[in-house]
């Protein structure tokens, strides 16, 4: 390593000395030349690569590189990624939104050489939904309950056609199938290694093959030369865990790694000012805010929840406290992500109005609130500062909020059991990437104990009715309109106190060409090439 750095420095010195003109054509040729291994600094050690278990974003994004799904959000597009066919080339949805018939891509092979076909898809779905299946995966079934929880039948129509029938209308099935954990794995590999050991030998059809792991050091991926959409230009990539943020940025600056995720806010200026590096923000489909307790007073008062919403200075919070790593949230979906509607009217910063609403709610002299926040700040590096800032905002209008930090699991238990009487709100950072999340967040029949995504006991009959209608609406444009109406209703209702949509800072060396930094937790290295 020492030698390679000094060699590079030596060469760059020569380049300066002999004049750029002579070397320029050579550099251009080098940029176009395929091959090379991309080294990526990861913020944590990725978990095992089960195709069907969500081990968090640091692992899930790698599933998108190993595996394909029937349909996908196109991560080679920066914003508003369209839903595209992946292993399915076309599909038909029955008018009642229960039956999905997929035509599958032909001639695709898994990395182990076995063919991809309708039987393989059925094997994957049965494995995560049918307890009598030989390779039934209980944890997978739990993880994929949203998509496969109510299946009526899965039928192989012919070698390249599969029909999936739901018991209830499920018009949101396609975007759910695009989620990383709906990846299609090689049945032969699962049979060979068994459920327990398969995650250490993942085999998909994706652009990169898993080529081994040295725990704590690296996970290696090699290009799939037979990838149906065209083989990647690079020979492969290495994921190198670098949990300490300063070390991660330093490794990029010294050239030890080529690409990093989660640049820490304090290092952003140094990376930006470095002529050899690129720093780009990606809007994440993340909604950070508070879930009020809709079951026990005082947050059952809509006016109080609205007062809380008007009291927060989101612009200052996003710009100064979060150093630009967020957008002020107007509703459930972040700008630049597929579910965003620019016409949603949210809440601005208006302390006077907040005070007025507070008085109208019966609290002219203010009131105390107990808010629980998860230890570590719900996935934001600014979690504590954000809550402190908002505490001041609340105080300015008369809401004296006490923020109690709770150990992760205690907090999770409150999510699973619902917010109890002694707590007025939970602070959460939710991934809201598809409309189907509105179902999970606001349906009254998904209150605890039937789920943990509506812990605030939100219940609104008209929202329930509309959500149900959306699940039966197969026309995309109509369903989209319906969801926007629902979103506007829950925003007006202040069902949640929406605060910000977080962004991620990713950075890479200028020799990395063609990387698309999508507005998503997911990304692919399929389009990347390495230049001089």
């Amino acid at each position, binding site marked *: *390593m*020492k*030698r*390679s*750095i000094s060699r590079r*420095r030596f060469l760059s010195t020569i380049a300066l000395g002999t004049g750029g003109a002579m070397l320029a054509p050579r550099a251009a040729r080098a940029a176009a030349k395929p091959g090379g*291994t991309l*080294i990526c600094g990861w913020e*944590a*050690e990725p*978990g*095992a690569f*089960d195709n069907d*278990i*969500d*081990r*968090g974003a640091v692992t899930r994004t790698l599933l998108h590189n190993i595996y394909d799904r029937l349909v996908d959000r196109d991560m080679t597009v920066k914003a508003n990624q369209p839903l595209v066919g992946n292993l399915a080339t076309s599909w038909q949805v029955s008018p009642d939104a229960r039956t999905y018939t997929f035509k599958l891509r032909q001639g695709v092979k898994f990395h182990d050489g076995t063919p991809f076909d309708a039987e393989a898809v059925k094997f994957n779905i049965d494995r995560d939904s049918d307890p009598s299946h030989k390779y039934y995966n*209980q*944890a997978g*079934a*739990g*993880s*994929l*309950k*949203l998509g496969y929880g109510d299946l009526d039948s899965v039928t192989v129509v012919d070698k390249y056609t599969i029909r999936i029938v739901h018991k209830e209308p499920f018009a949101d099935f396609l975007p759910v199938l695009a989620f990383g954990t709906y990846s299609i794995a090689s049945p032969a590999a699962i049979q060979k290694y068994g459920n*327990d*050991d398969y*995650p*250490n030998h993942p085999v998909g059809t994706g652009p990169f093959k898993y080529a081994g792991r*040295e*725990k*704590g*050091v*690296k996970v290696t991926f090699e290009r799939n030369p037979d990838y149906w959409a065209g083989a990647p230009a690079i020979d492969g990539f*290495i994921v*190198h*865990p*670098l*949990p*300490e943020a*300063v*070390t991660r940025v*330093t*490794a990029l*600056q*010294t050239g*030890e*790694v080529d690409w990093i995720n989660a640049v820490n806010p304090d290092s952003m200026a140094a990376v930006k000012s470095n002529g050899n590096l690129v720093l780009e923000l990606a809007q994440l489909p993340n909604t950070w805010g508070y879930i009020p307790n809709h079951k026990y007073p005082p947050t059952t008062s809509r006016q109080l929840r609205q007062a809380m919403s008007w009291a927060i200075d989101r612009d200052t919070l996003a710009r100064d406290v979060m150093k630009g790593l967020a957008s002020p949230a107007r509703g459930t979906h972040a700008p630049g992500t597929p579910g965003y509607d620019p016409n949603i009217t949210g809440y601005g910063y208006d302390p006077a109005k907040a005070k007025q609403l507070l008085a109208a709610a019966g609290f002219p002299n203010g009131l105390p609130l107990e808010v629980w926040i998860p230890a570590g700040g719900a996935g934001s590096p600014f979690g504590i500062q954000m809550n402190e800032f908002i505490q001041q905002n609340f105080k300015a209008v008369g809401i004296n909020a006490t923020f109690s930090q709770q*150990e*992760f*699991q*205690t907090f*999770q*238990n409150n999510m699973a059991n619902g917010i109890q009487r002694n707590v007025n709100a939970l602070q959460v950072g939710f991934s809201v990437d598809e409309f189907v999340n509105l179902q999970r967040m606001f349906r009254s029949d998904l209150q605890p*104990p*039937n*789920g*943990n*995504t509506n812990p605030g006991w939100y219940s609104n009959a008209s929202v329930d009715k509309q959500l149900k209608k959306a699940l039966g609406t197969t026309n995309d444009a109509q369903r989209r309109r319906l969801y926007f109406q629902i979103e506007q209703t829950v925003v007006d209702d202040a069902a949640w106190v929406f605060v910000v949509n977080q962004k991620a800072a990713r950075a890479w060396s200028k020799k990395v060409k063609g990387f698309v930094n999508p507005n998503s937790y997911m990304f692919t290295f399929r389009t990347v090439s390495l230049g001089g």
Partner: protein
Amino acid sequence: MLRFGIERLLATIPVLVGVSIVVFFTMKLIPGDAAQVLAGPQATREQVALIRQSLGLDRPLYVQYATWLGRAVRGNLGRSIQLEAPVTEMVVARLRNTLVLAIAASVLAVAIGVPAGILSATHKSSIIDRASMVVALFGNSMPTFWLGLVFILVFSLHFRLFPSNGMYSLRGPAGFPDLLWHLTLPALTLAGVPAAVLARLTRSNLLETLTDDYVRTARAKGLREPRVVARHALGNALLPVVTLIGIQVGYLLGGSILVETVFSWPGLGLQLYDAIGARDLPLVQGGVLLVATMFVLINLCVDIFYGVLDPRIRYSA
């Protein structure tokens, strides 16, 4: 001597049982369990209950402890939830890397700390004494992770002398020189505190010994000062230092968690850090048990070694 060794060995058994009880039940005190992590946020309560049953987590705690201990004694520490691999295999592989770092840091700590202490003692109140004691105070007081970050910023980023992370280069061949090169900064960082402690202890012990009667006699016989220090005083002065070195090696094993995280050194500490972040309880449990056991065993070795050095100890025991 053999009897002393066997006695000490037998005495570690209740300590190890105590360690296993603390490790097991501390993990149980944390709310939530492996079943919840495995099942994911979408799972229903019934599904979590089924997984809990399949993992044996629904049985009484003492049964779980007995099962766990029985397996642990046979070398089976369970299975990592996040990495789907046997914990024993994982922690043993990573322990090797931690030992490389801990031994390098121990060697550095002794190589820096002991000579600095001797120099200070033999040049009491001189500029050398004052300077080395100020450095020792600094080394003792600086948080390890801060020192590591400063080293990275200065020696990796600014001077580009050493790599900022890892155990070997990801580009190009990895050999012994490459390992040494990667080892330098983390080992120096980790050696900071023990070197400082050793320097101070060596200094105070040697100063005390140098005022002993037999040393005065040696001087009176006309021996030159370096010989007095090296041949007569040092042996006795270093006896407590040996104990301290042993304790410091134990500290280095446990204390490397921060250094390993800062430098992404693929040892047990980094693994524990990752496992805690991923709520991989079997892995945390296995890692902590291994570190604690190592600590007990190192102390056992120190005890026995001490007995070898000083016969009075094995007789009084």
